[in-house]
């Protein structure tokens, strides 16, 4: 026979003002199994909690119902109090008579009647609550950081500096990401490479960091604290350990005319190449799609010329499997392609470029050594038009959101141009200038006031070539919507920031959610901004939303702090709300018939196969088993099971039917 206690909270006037709490307690007393029922002003106060504890001890209660606020509010409080009094915390339930009753209905008998029903439902539930124990899982203290841009580098360094192991994975041949391509950075105009390169070297040399460049994540299995990452290390076709990075091969390779990715196609590279002079690791890679040897089996020039004999043309991809406890997603962003702008000629004209190309033109290490020259004929442009919001904030033809970084980098571009080309004219077409950040608006004002950049508030409707120049047709809304035509030598579009290529597949691989723009979704937009909905997977940088460098770095450090917090404990505890498959004595063993419908329903791959054997080792049957580490407790498998052999702890079939019967 159950011994249930019911505690009805007035919450001051919040509940007591609408619901007759004394009557609720009285009604509760008449429910079968209830041996104790009281009402009290504030159950969550110390005296209130003591009331609960004393009753558990004195009345030897085996279940309690607290009729008060939402369980989302105070369930942990009362479960802890119950534990202190020696009752299993999972045998404490809450009836939500505040948010679901007193706050949403008028004072009336019907409201009190509803409160009584809500208590009754929970009494029926708690009677069937089994004592549960949090699940403990060990943690492997190695973090996997996906993406070697500034966010990934920062997260890797912070985690490694706290004494943990880190695997830093980068898809391209070098770490550095977009930041390594930038010329100077706003709002200080310090050189991007000067501040980034030391970090790149530091992370590569760090004793706790394993760097896998030119590598991709194939598969991630497991759960928080216990992931298993399968990594493909693509073949560079050379032995990195032997190669001394002399670069002779990259100068002698006969295949020369491949557009250089790092310079955004403004220069050309060979089929064997080092992406850029400061690349980490500073070792070449063979681009097998363009290499003559891999196309027709002849050449081997690099092999012959390599003094260190490091070239390995027969090298194959390598699959590495590593156990990791946490994952930081820092896969970054890409920008909208110019082919998305038919009204600007699909970007077919060489002098119509995007912001990243301009960065390379302005970079001292770029193809023009920092001199702004237009791509078509190398002429120094006398008039440059910058177009902000190219694709951003355009829900019909582009993306609906603000790409956030463009206002600032466009101001920087215009400023750099004015510094480098004296007497040149710079126009910026904009919708709004959004410069909310430390010293950001001052920076934009400086571009306007000190550097004489002409800001035109209006959109550009067409850009077309005409007699060696580009005609930019726009409108000046501050001139009453006057159409403007500017003949420019170079046009720079601040194209929208978009989610990285393949982020959908990445999200599916990791079981994290993404928003409708394919950016990875944070667990809570305000309070859990660096976590995903999947425990143990964290976010850093522009893979979550458009971000600038300081924000990416801050978020990376935040994600690193979360990882370090996770790694600071030897094991993890988890809510025991997980599914279990029926097990019973022979000869039945289990009512599960092994149809595995549950497996196809489970979003977490938590259903495994288990072979039941007799003591002699004979196979009896193959049934389902739930991996408690993977199970998140949604219960979809329970509803799918045809033989009712699988049940969800805390929300059992018996409990739910009993709850319905209470209404």
């Amino acid at each position, binding site marked *: 026979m159950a011994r249930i206690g019911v505690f009805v909270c007035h919450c001051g006037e919040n509940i007591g003002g609408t619901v007759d709490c004394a009557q609720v307690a009285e009604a509760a007393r008449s429910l079968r199994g209830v041996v104790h029922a009281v009402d009290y002003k504030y159950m969550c106060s110390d005296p209130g909690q003591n009331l609960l504890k004393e009753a558990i001890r004195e009345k030897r209660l085996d279940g309690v119902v607290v009729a008060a606020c939402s369980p989302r509010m105070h369930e942990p409080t009362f479960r802890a109090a119950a534990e202190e009094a020696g009752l299993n915390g999972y045998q404490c339930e809450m009836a939500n008579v505040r948010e679901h009753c007193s706050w949403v209905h008028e004072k009336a008998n019907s409201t009190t009647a509803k409160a009584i029903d809500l208590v009754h439902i929970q009494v029926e539930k708690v009677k069937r609550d089994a004592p549960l124990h949090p699940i403990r899982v060990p943690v492997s203290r190695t973090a996997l950081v996906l993406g070697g841009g500034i966010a990934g580098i920062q997260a890797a360094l912070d985690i490694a500096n706290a004494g943990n192991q880190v695997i830093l994975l980068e898809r391209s041949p070098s770490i550095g990401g977009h930041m390594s391509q930038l010329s100077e950075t706003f709002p200080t105009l310090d050189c991007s490479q000067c501040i980034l390169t030391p970090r790149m070297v530091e992370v590569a040399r760090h004793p706790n960091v394993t760097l896998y460049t030119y590598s991709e994540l194939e598969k991630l299995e497991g759960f928080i604290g216990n992931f298993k990452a399968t990594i493909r290390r693509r073949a560079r076709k050379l032995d990195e350990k032997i190669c001394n990075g002399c670069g002779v091969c990259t100068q002698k390779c006969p295949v020369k005319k491949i557009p250089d990715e790092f310079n955004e196609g403004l220069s050309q590279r060979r089929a064997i190449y080092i992406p850029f002079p400061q690349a980490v690791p500073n070792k070449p890679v063979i681009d097998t799609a363009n290499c003559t040897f891999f196309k027709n089996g002849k050449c081997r020039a690099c092999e012959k010329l390599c003094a260190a004999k490091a070239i390995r043309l027969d090298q194959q991809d390598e699959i590495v499997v590593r156990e990791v406890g946490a994952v930081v997603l820092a896969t970054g962003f890409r920008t909208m392609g110019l082919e998305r702008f*038919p*009204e600007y*000629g*699909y970007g*077919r004209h060489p002098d119509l470029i995007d912001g990243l190309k301009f960065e390379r033109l302005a970079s001292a290490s770029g193809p023009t050594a920092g001199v702004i020259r237009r791509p078509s004929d190398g002429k120094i442009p006398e008039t440059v038009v910058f177009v902000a919001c190219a694709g951003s904030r355009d829900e019909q033809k582009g993306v609906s959101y603000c790409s956030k970084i463009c206002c600032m980098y466009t101001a920087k571009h215009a400023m750099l141009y004015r510094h480098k080309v004296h007497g040149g004219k710079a126009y910026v077409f904009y919708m709004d200038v959004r410069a909310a950040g430390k010293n950001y608006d001052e920076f934009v004002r400086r571009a306007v006031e000190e550097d004489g950049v002409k800001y035109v508030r209006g959109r550009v409707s*067409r850009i*077309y070539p*005409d*007699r060696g120049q580009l005609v930019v047709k726009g409108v000046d809304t501050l001139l009453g919507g006057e159409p403007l035509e500017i003949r420019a030598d170079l046009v720079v579009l601040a194209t929208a920031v978009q989610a990285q290529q393949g982020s959908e597949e990445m999200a599916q691989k990791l079981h994290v959610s993404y928003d409708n723009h394919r950016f990875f979704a944070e667990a809570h937009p305000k309070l859990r901004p660096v976590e995903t909905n999947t425990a143990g997977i964290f976010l850093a940088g522009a893979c979550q939303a458009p971000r600038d460098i300081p924000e990416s770095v801050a978020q990376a450090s935040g994600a690193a702090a979360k990882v370090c917090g996770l790694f600071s404990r030897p094991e993890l505890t988890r809510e025991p709300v997980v599914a279990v498959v029926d097990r019973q004595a022979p000869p039945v063993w289990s009512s599960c018939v092994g149809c595995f419908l549950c497996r196809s329903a489970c979003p977490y791959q938590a259903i495994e196969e288990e072979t039941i054997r007799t003591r002699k080792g004979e196979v009896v049957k193959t049934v389902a088993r739930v991996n408690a580490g993977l199970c998140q407790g949604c219960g979809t498998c329970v509803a799918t099971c045809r033989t009712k052999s699988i049940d969800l702890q805390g929300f059992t079939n018996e409990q739910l039917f009993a709850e319905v019967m209470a209404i």
Partner: protein
Amino acid sequence: MRVGYYPGCSLVGSSRDFGESVAAVAGALEVELAEVPGWNCCGASSAHALDHLLALALPASVLASAARAGLGEVLAPCASCYHRLVSAQRELAGSEQLRRQVERVIDMPVGAPVKVLNVLEWLERCIDLITPKVKQPFARTVACYYGCLLVRPAKVIEFDRSEDPVSMDQLVARVGGKTVEWGFKTECCGAALSIPRTPTVGQLGARIVRNAAGSGAEAIVVACPMCHSNLDMRRGAIEEALGTSVDLPVLFITQVVGLALGISERALGLQRHFVEVRWPGRTPTATASASGGAAPVR
């Protein structure tokens, strides 16, 4: 092959040359043009400015007559007619109430949906009939000018790429011509303001003609009678705006195809142009007398 045909007012009037070349090409391809019986004006650029119901009823009446005559597809070579027919069709499909009102006005059921074809769409469909019959490849470099109404708004018209259409360029290429990349393919020529605001039309046309000439074209090719009138008949106003004269003829796409098919210039109505087609090696047909005193008018 047989296709419904809605010439519209321009093709029997001020753009008779367009109508003649459509008919000539269809004849050469042995395509029967089945004229919509008793067709009326679509209301074009004026009805929608003054009277919404009329702007729907006039095209609806044309489409209903076509449906009643059993025509599943109707070729509307005039871009403005094409635009009005398609727009009205879309609007009526979206509103039961409007449809009922319009049916009362035209005193006919709106009828089965009729597929409206513009001239480029139609020529594209006939391309397999055209290529084997090309007698004299159209070896010219031209600028294809699409104007507004064949391609915009994209979500209503759903034809070609609205910002950078290519269908006409492809047609010209199929009959042996070359086309230039230029910036004014879909800029507006001023259309219906031709009469009440001639100088505006002159300015708009001037930019189009200048850019086409600057990009190395020997002619502009159009698929719209209004574009043709504004660039050809209004060349006087254009030249006034430019401050210089430009010898750049304007041809209908059907004339281009017709020339390649070896149809006579007269049958294609070339003699009706204000800007004479003067290409090296061209022996002008006996149009001099017909065009007597027809220099571009300012």
